[in-house]
């Protein structure tokens, strides 16, 4: 039998099962905490930092922090939201994101968040890095220009015997995602599809299957990101 705990988000009394992550606990109470690297059912990583909330005065990522009794959480405040907006902007400037020419436009979580946080012009200068498209895999096209290094593919996609197909390479501003030449080459259709589906941006795309849903009828064309949680 699970125990329920009381906690507060922005002064609102909430109730959730002890030990579940704050992101889920908030959603169960109809409160949206924006996430980008998080994906349900996969061990969280706290890579994008967008879900950062203040827990008893300290910044903590809501996707990795379990809820405990009596927690006082600040989520929707001007200070926190401005840093979240800055993080979205920084993800735009560190890569090359040209939404109009991107297959993921309309169902891209980064783009949807940018709309939600009303990003107009980033406060940072665009870095315009020189990045490569890797089309060596038979089923997936990897476009490093659009990658936000959220680690979703690394964490969620494994072979049947638990081996990694995706991994990080290098560190810092040179960080990138790589696909295992051997295991990636033998990836099943199902796993290839899954990796494309979980990519929040257009960094992993399927071969020969673009634009199956017309722009204008895509997920975030219909309703903004976060509405689902808030409707609960």
């Amino acid at each position: 039998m699970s125990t329920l705990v009381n906690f507060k988000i922005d002064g609102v009394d909430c109730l959730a099962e002890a030990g579940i992550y704050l992101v889920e606990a908030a959603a169960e109470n109809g409160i949206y905490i924006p996430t980008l690297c998080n994906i349900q059912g996969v061990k969280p990583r706290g890579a994008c930092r967008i879900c950062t909330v203040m827990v008893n005065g300290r910044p903590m990522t809501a996707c990795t922090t379990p809820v405990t009794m009596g927690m006082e959480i600040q989520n929707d405040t001007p200070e926190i939201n401005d840093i979240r907006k800055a993080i979205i902007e920084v993800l735009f400037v560190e890569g090359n994101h040209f939404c109009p020419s991107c297959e993921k436009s309309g169902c891209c979580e980064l783009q949807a968040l940018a709309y939600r946080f009303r990003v107009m012009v980033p406060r940072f200068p665009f870095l315009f890095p020189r990045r490569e498209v890797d089309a060596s895999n038979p089923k997936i096209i990897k476009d490093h220009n659009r990658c936000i290094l959220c680690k979703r593919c690394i964490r969620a996609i494994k072979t049947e015997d638990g081996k990694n197909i995706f991994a990080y390479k290098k560190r810092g501003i040179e960080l990138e995602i790589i696909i295992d030449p051997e295991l990636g080459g033998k990836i099943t259709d199902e796993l290839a599809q899954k990796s494309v589906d979980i990519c929040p941006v257009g960094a992993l795309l399927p071969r020969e299957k673009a634009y199956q849903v017309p722009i204008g009828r895509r997920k975030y064309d219909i309703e903004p990101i976060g509405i689902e949680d808030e409707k609960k």
Partner: protein
Amino acid sequence: MATTVQNIIKKYNKDKTRLMDILIDVQSDQGYISKESISKIAAELDISHVDVEQTMSFYHFFSDKPTGKYAIYLNDSAVSNMMGRQKVKETLEKETGIAFGQVTRDGLIGLFDTSCIGMNDQEPAALINGHVFNNLTPFRVKEIIRDIKEGKPVEQMYTSAYGDGENRNVLVKTVVQNNIQKKGPILSEDYIPGIVIWKKLPQMTPEQVIEEVKKSNMRGRGGAGFPTGLKWEFCRKAKGEKKYIFCNADEGEPGTFKDRVILTERPKLLFEGMVIAAYAVGADEGIAYVRHEYKYLKNYLENLLQGARERNLLGKNIGGIEGFDFDIRIQFGAGAYVCGEESALIESAEGKRGEPRDRPPFPVEKGYLDMPTVVNNVETLCSVVKVILNGGEWYSKFGTKDSSGTKLLSISGDCKYPGVYEVEWGFSVSDMLEMVGADEENIQAVQVGGPSGSLIGPDEFDRTLCFADLATGGSLIIIGNHRDLLTDIVLNFTEFFVEESCGSCSTCRNIPYLMKLKLEKILDARGVPQDLKDLEEWGKILKFSRCGLGQTAGNPILSSLRNFRHLYEGKIQMDKEYDSEFDMSQAVKASCEAAGRVPILN
């Protein structure tokens, strides 16, 4: 070649958690880690190719291309630059005919930059195939390159006498100097190795040991200052089939080198501290994670561990205590500052990338191989021996109320006597300057606590070193009036953070880099007042990073903006609101010259 790699893998029992050791051995044996080696390692350890590549590509001292028969890594710390690095670098390039980052065509010499190697008291310094060459001058560089071209083995290239103390031990033989300038309870010579294990531990329960450490009020010496006794208690109470004691000897904060001196002169004290910690928390295995830069101490340290086993200070029924079994192994890093963060250090020791973990859970609950783990700083573990030997009360008399005991300071920069000083907490910056032979009138700033700490000016020299005021892991860099603070110190430190970010947080991966670009713009005299505001605002974003590295990566700029704002204001265009950073006449210069035209710019 394949057989050597095969043998290395076999040496570590095909254990994928020993991937670091395997890569270190392959790199050192072959000068690089080839694609074939990666495939071989992946196949033998039954992990994917990208698993090997992700660990390998994370660490500075691993390379997928040959690094030269003689790989020269020249320290790029701020103090190295202050002590004449530029001329040494130029001479290296001139004598070898290559630029940094390159290898000579014949594959003989490779030149590389590297972050602080823990030799700030004897700069400029370099590592050549792991051997330290200190106090470099252009003359010395010419000698070295000449020796290399003659094919001399590195160990025969030293021209000065070996350093003091154990630096001349037959298993060390290095020119590194200890520079111990002031001794206290930790560095004092009146220590009999094993005394606590033989005389004290058998009469104490683990709980009593923890109680004594708590009584001493000791706080971790790595910088964060978590109470040591409490950490041990948490770990003792945590459930796990096995428990581990880690010694964090990955001191990477630019300007610290006190662990180097402890590892050289008091390693037995350190190992005894690990044994005490093991007894207190009930641990079976200890790992001393030592930074790659100190690999020249490997044989020496391993020999001491063997000696300890022979004298029953390690192994089974230690000190005659029935059922107290504990042993220590040394794990070397491979060049990553972030591994000094305890959970990154654990990841690294498991053979992975040194990325800090999300917390909770904390290492005391789920650490190495998901088992309860204590990670303590070298100095903390050494202090513990004295606490148990003389009692917690005795120890708490040193220092101040909130910061008990002594602290080892690594002092470098513009002073007469750089080196290691053991002082009581509560020492003022002013006294420190006097102690090291620095004339306060000639000093414009002191960097307290390394790049992640704070840069303070003369009006704050009366502040004291303790957790309540200026907390520090012990790196103090003294900066004379003649230095260009923003270029020599602030820019260098910011570049350090850019270089050392693991990159897994969006914030720390990008913000320091963006701040560096802005600082360069200011140094280039193109800054405007808004740029200073931007830097302050951007710095706040870093507080959303996971670990201490990310959270403090903006400190060089933020603390200098706070305390030396006039230097920034002197560089920017105070009367201008916007600067496009674009110089049209410069941009069209080459084409105008080619066409023989004079540019007409409105």
